């Protein structure tokens, strides 16, 4: 059975296999864009973010990115469970792109012939054509270039949306990421005063639905296609087997923990393309939080936990005040501890006795 929605989405897909030409812009618009300065940015794998200006220098420009889609086996937990991941540029999540409001994002998407499936990209930041999905569907062995204008500032999800049931399957197999469109004059607090960050980390959360065998062990498959039916069955139950940051249980802990220092201000961009999440920094706060991720709205202050709606990205700014190990978790603690949604911050610096002190060390209970 094919639902009406699936049929609509598949119709879009079918039309696209023939590779539609991009809509021609008016000659004047084309000339204006052609006259803009261009910048080529090399993306870096999360949790890191490519170098960028927080305040735009000069006027709008065309920012060029290239992402190569890689289908590849990835280990997603500490017992070696392996899934056939679908990735933008080889990482789950895909890399964070950063531009400024008014810039043009020009993405070249490459689907190497070694891949098994057609893919595309739907930018929640873009306007029209299913977020660009209609103009970017490419088969293995093809590439495509899309340009869209970054008209709204904020953090936005991008994800693969190749039609029908392929959409959720590609997304939970790893095909999502985020773009951050900064206001040209940078981030501002709730009173309009500028705020800046010393570091930025991108934490992409992903839910996996790995089928189990009769003994309850996670199964692995020879190919993506062979995993499809069983995986879809688990997905339809809506209970993920793994909820992870940066593609795997423990990907942001131990030697890979996020680093910071007392006095440093960190911006944490958190995306979840499919499912609700609720980030919480254990022992810290969100000083300024754009929960919905859109910088035209004033940030919320002093949050303990913030809500990331499935299909969105948010941003939280925090200045570390105390050294130590901080756990950054999805505060559904079952998901954090049992399913994997935990990252750690390792923060160096001087202890602030005023903020916290152990007045008396543990000792046997006084009897009189």
């Amino acid at each position, binding site marked *: 059975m094919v639902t009406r929605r699936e049929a609509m989405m598949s119709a879009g897909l079918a039309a696209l296999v023939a590779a539609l030409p991009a809509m021609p812009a008016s000659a004047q618009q084309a000339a204006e864009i052609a006259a803009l300065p261009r910048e080529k940015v090399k993306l870096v794998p999360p949790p890191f973010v490519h170098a960028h200006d927080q305040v735009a220098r000069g006027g709008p420009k065309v920012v060029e990115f290239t992402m190569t889609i890689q289908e590849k086996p990835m*280990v997603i937990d500490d017992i070696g469970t392996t899934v056939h991941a679908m990735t933008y540029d080889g990482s789950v999540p895909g890399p964070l792109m950063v531009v400024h409001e008014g810039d043009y994002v020009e993405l070249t998407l490459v689907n190497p012939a070694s891949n098994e499936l057609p893919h595309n990209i739907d930018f929640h930041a873009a306007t029209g054509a299913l977020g660009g999905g209609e103009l970017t569907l490419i088969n293995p062995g093809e590439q495509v270039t899309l340009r869209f204008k970054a008209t709204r500032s904020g953090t936005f999800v991008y994800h693969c949306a190749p039609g029908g049931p392929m959409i959720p399957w590609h997304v939970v197999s790893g095909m999502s990421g985020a773009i951050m469109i900064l206001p040209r004059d940078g981030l501002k607090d709730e009173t309009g005063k500028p705020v800046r960050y010393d570091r930025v980390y991108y934490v992409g959360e992903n839910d996996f639905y790995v089928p189990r065998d009769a*003994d309850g062990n996670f199964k692995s498959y020879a190919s993506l296609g062979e995993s499809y039916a069983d995986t879809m069955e688990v997905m339809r139950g809506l209970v993920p087997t793994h909820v992870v940051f940066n593609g795997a249980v*423990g990907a942001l802990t*131990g*030697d890979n923990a996020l680093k910071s220092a007392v006095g440093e201000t960190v911006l944490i961009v958190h995306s979840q393309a499919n499912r609700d999440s609720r980030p919480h920094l254990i022992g810290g706060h969100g000083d300024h939080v754009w929960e919905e991720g859109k910088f035209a709205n004033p940030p919320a202050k002093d949050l303990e936990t913030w809500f990331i709606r499935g299909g969105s990205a948010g941003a939280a700014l925090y200045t570390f005040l105390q050294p130590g*190990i901080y756990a950054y978790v999805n505060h559904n603690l079952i998901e954090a*501890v049992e399913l994997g949604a935990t990252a750690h911050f390792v923060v160096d610096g001087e202890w602030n006795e005023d903020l916290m002190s152990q007045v008396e060390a543990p000792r046997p209970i006084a009897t009189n």
Partner: protein
Amino acid sequence: MNTTSILLSGAAAAAMAAALAGGLVLAVPERPAGDAAAVPPAETVRIAPGTLLFPEPGAFLRDGRPVAQPRRSLRLAAPLEIMRHQVSVGAYRRCVAAGACSPADLPRDAAPDLPVTGVSHIDAEAYAAWYSRQTGRTWRLPSAAEWAHAAGTRFVGDLWDGAGDADNPASAWLARYRAEGTTGAPAAPPQPRGRFGANEKGVVDLAGNVWEWTSTCYRRVTLVGEAETRATLENCGVRIAEGRHRAYMSRFIRDGKSGGCAVGTPPEHLGFRLVREPGPLARFALLWGRLTGAQAEEPAV
């Protein structure tokens, strides 16, 4: 239920295990008089008495501040007879089949010669009690000090001794976290017997990727002088597992990974090996030695 239960065929044993899992309470078989042959005796290594410099497990405070664990010179006066290998999946399954042990958290198809893992401290003690009944000898978990003595150069202890900067409590957490740091790489599954080799005393697979339960309880100790103790609080709900590093685990935990707090590196797998108490003759010899002054020191553990 009679004493022939451990001789039941595999199918009957499986049925019994299933009945147990279903919540039936079965009498634990008494020690059989003649069928101990059903349980192959574990190969043991006899460790000579000796002295070791032992970093004491637990948390230590002086003047309300965490300090490094004291390292004490301990003399183990009696020879120690310890299993050469960790208790295997096959051996543990016999105890399960006999209805004296709960099934380990293991894949059903785990090879019988792998070390048993997915066992709690409670499971390990149940196995020791059953195994003692089967063999007519007293088997028990080693103390942490006995384990360290048997482990010799394989002994690691805590990766961080607990000392911290008095003005910065976070420094100890950071140091510990860095000492235990991991790459996030998947833990290897339990390895076939012998994979990690023998130590200089002939004990095999110590400090591989299976941590071993000991009988030693978690303690918090308040120190006054160099080694003087003002107060000790013992929590036997938490036991010490030794291995690639020392771990403090709630005793009902079977999966090391779920036993930790928000941070810290947990054991990859939890298993155990046992020590055998000296028989009557050996006990007499030891006592005689003490009486005659040949063994002046008390056993330290």
